[in-house]
């Protein structure tokens, strides 16, 4: 029985047990194809949801650089995202700035902020990193909430022009905005993918696994963590700019702890350290929230159950589920081959 299982799994998993490497690209390609082709055929509400998914996917991927690749759990990531959104809102409403000024301003403010915060957090690890980023996130929330002349306080800022009009695009609507968001998402995703596959990215993984060893090998781990934090903040800012244009509105709820922890869930649910996983995590959470809440009032209960089941069944996240299974199957296969040989 065991032998048959082993053989079957061995065949499925291939000679080296990396089935995911063969299937993964197909899933990604299929996902991309759907994202490119489907929207014009969908109801505008669904196009909106897809746009939301893309924006949060970008944000979750940026957190994954920190959380999954560098091993730094940030609970203040929504803060940077929110500050970039606020920058767009303030520039476009109070200063009537043009489109490119708003985009550049949003990304720049978010990046500079993470460059400043990075100085405060890059020397700590684990739970201390969690606590300090949490505190910094709360500071940003407090600012958004109380710096009323600039942020409008609890009321937030409304009246951000639509991206299409602001950028001078000839067409308006949910679908054109979606394709802009998709373009931005694609560029960011490729950039992040290249980043984590670069020597720099491998160094980050090294730090995650064993920082002392990386240090003794001569790597400046502080600098790597710092740059990881800043780059992650820069990508989060891009997502923030898109979010501001998507909603045409900003409020302190973007900066709240709940926003950061939901983001954290997207990454852990999808699979930290994979980049693709957080995209699925973001998609799953946005869809679950919006679809289930339309069906039942007890949607929070269902969402909570989904989180718990995922954590129990796939502690490494959904995307890593298949990978672990196939790896284990591969190991079992080679072990059983060993016994039969």
């Amino acid at each position: 029985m065991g032998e048959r299982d082993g053989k079957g799994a061995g065949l499925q998993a291939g000679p080296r047990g990396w089935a995911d490497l063969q299937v993964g690209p197909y899933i990604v390609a299929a996902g991309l194809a759907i994202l490119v082709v489907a929207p014009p055929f969908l109801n505008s509400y669904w196009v909106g949801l897809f746009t939301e998914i893309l924006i949060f996917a970008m944000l979750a991927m940026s957190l994954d650089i920190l959380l999954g690749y560098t091993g730094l759990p940030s609970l203040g990531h929504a803060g940077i995202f929110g500050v970039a959104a606020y920058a767009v809102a303030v520039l476009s409403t109070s200063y009537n700035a043009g489109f490119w000024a708003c985009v550049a301003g949003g990304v720049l403010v978010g990046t500079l902020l993470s460059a400043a915060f990075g100085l405060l957090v890059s020397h700590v690890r684990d739970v201390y990193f969690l606590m300090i980023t949490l505190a910094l996130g709360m500071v940003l929330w407090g600012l958004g909430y109380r710096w009323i002349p600039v942020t409008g306080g609890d009321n937030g800022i409304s009246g951000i022009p639509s991206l299409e009009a602001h950028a001078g695009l000839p067409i308006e609507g949910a679908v054109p905005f979606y394709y802009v968001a998709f373009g931005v998402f694609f560029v960011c995703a490729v950039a992040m993918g290249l980043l984590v596959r670069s020597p720099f990215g491998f160094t980050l993984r090294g730090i995650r696994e064993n920082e002392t060893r990386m240090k003794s090998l001569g790597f400046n781990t502080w600098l790597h963590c710092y740059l990881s934090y800043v780059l992650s903040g820069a990508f989060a800012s891009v997502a923030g700019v898109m979010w501001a244009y998507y909603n045409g509105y900003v409020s302190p709820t973007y900066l709240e702890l709940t926003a950061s922890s939901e983001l954290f869930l997207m990454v852990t649910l999808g699979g930290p350290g994979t980049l693709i996983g957080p995209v699925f995590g973001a998609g799953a959470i946005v869809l679950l929230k919006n679809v289930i809440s339309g069906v039942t009032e007890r949607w929070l209960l269902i969402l909570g159950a989904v989180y718990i089941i995922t954590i129990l069944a796939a502690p490494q996240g959904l995307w890593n589920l298949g990978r672990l299974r196939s790896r284990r199957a591969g190991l079992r296969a080679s072990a059983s081959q060993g016994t039969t040989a």
Partner: protein
Amino acid sequence: MTRIILLLLVLLVGAGEAVRGVRLQADPDRGPIRIGFLVPLSGGLAQNGRDILNGFLLYLEEIGYRAAGRQIELIVEDDEGIPAVGLTKARKLVESDRVHLMAGTLLSSSGYALAPYIDSMKIPMVYPVVSADDLTQRKRSPWIIRTGWTGSQPNHPFGEYAYHTLKLRRVATIALDYAFGWESVGGFQRTFEAEGGQIVQKLWTPVSVHDFAPYLAQISRDVDAVYALFLGRNALQFVRQYEEYGLRGRVPLIGQGTTTDEHVLPFMGDEAIGTITALHYSGALDTPANKTFATTYRARYGKVPSYYSESMYTGGKWSVAAIEAIRGNVEDRAQLLDAFRRVRPADLPRGPVELDSYGNPIENVYIRRVERVNGELQNTVIHTFTRVSQFWKYDPAAYLRQPLYSRRYVPSVTE
């Protein structure tokens, strides 16, 4: 393998929903009148949201979910009290469910967030509760019909009442530190000081306040009354701690109507008795219309109606009156909007209401004192100001040239 299955599942759910959306889109606009409804049903404001929904459901049940010969289909969504969520849900209601009109939402921030979207989609929306002044003042939105009130509206007459009838001269205020608090205190301060009174101290507490001890210790004992603005859990705790600090009996407590509104009053004890507040509704209002409403509401939900409950009972009645005025032809949104502005629904629990040209109700303001009647606390109406406009006695144009009430406006004499 698992990954493929998961992916397929996600896609299936998405595709199914999308197809449903497309089908609805393809449907010609016949059949039921679809009303989208947004309130917080989870989170800290769930109870208030539930009250608003209950009032609406009660009215819809009364008319058998029918208006102008057409069936009414109500689609309820939870906005969690988060503006961005409210916006996503509004998109769902308008673009996927194809509702003919919308109603609801609770927080000013959600109200402001939805306004540009509502205008861009040209969909009439009833705001039964959102009280942010500027929604019908400096940032008017043509497609929003406010059937509720502005935060400062009951406080303008209340300021004069406090000076002339309650004979107060020096008052300290303590309020939640956000737009609703500023606008209420601002309105009270403006008329109270115009009559000759003085606000000698203004304290602001965060919305997330857990303990009033540090604030109560700061309150000046050398005042004629303390004006308080709280709601929900805050209101319960403030009134209790006000007594524990020995202030009750020494310094009378007055305030915005929400502080003793029926959504919290049943959970208060004797410490609330004697508190005088102003609002456009009281559960104990002694009119035939309100008695009928309060009795049926109590029979249906087992509790006394709050101003939140009344808000959407009236909002519902208003919507149906508008729908019937255009013979159910809700597809013509401009006509529907016009009907909303024109109709004057009769026999409302809160009394007669009409819209001013800025889209805000002109309605009665009741001065209420908490009393124990038949063993139950109630807001006994002790004075009625009839036909109070959001601009009170001021000229609207001149009023709008003043800044919006805020933490800094009206300025304190002590500052």
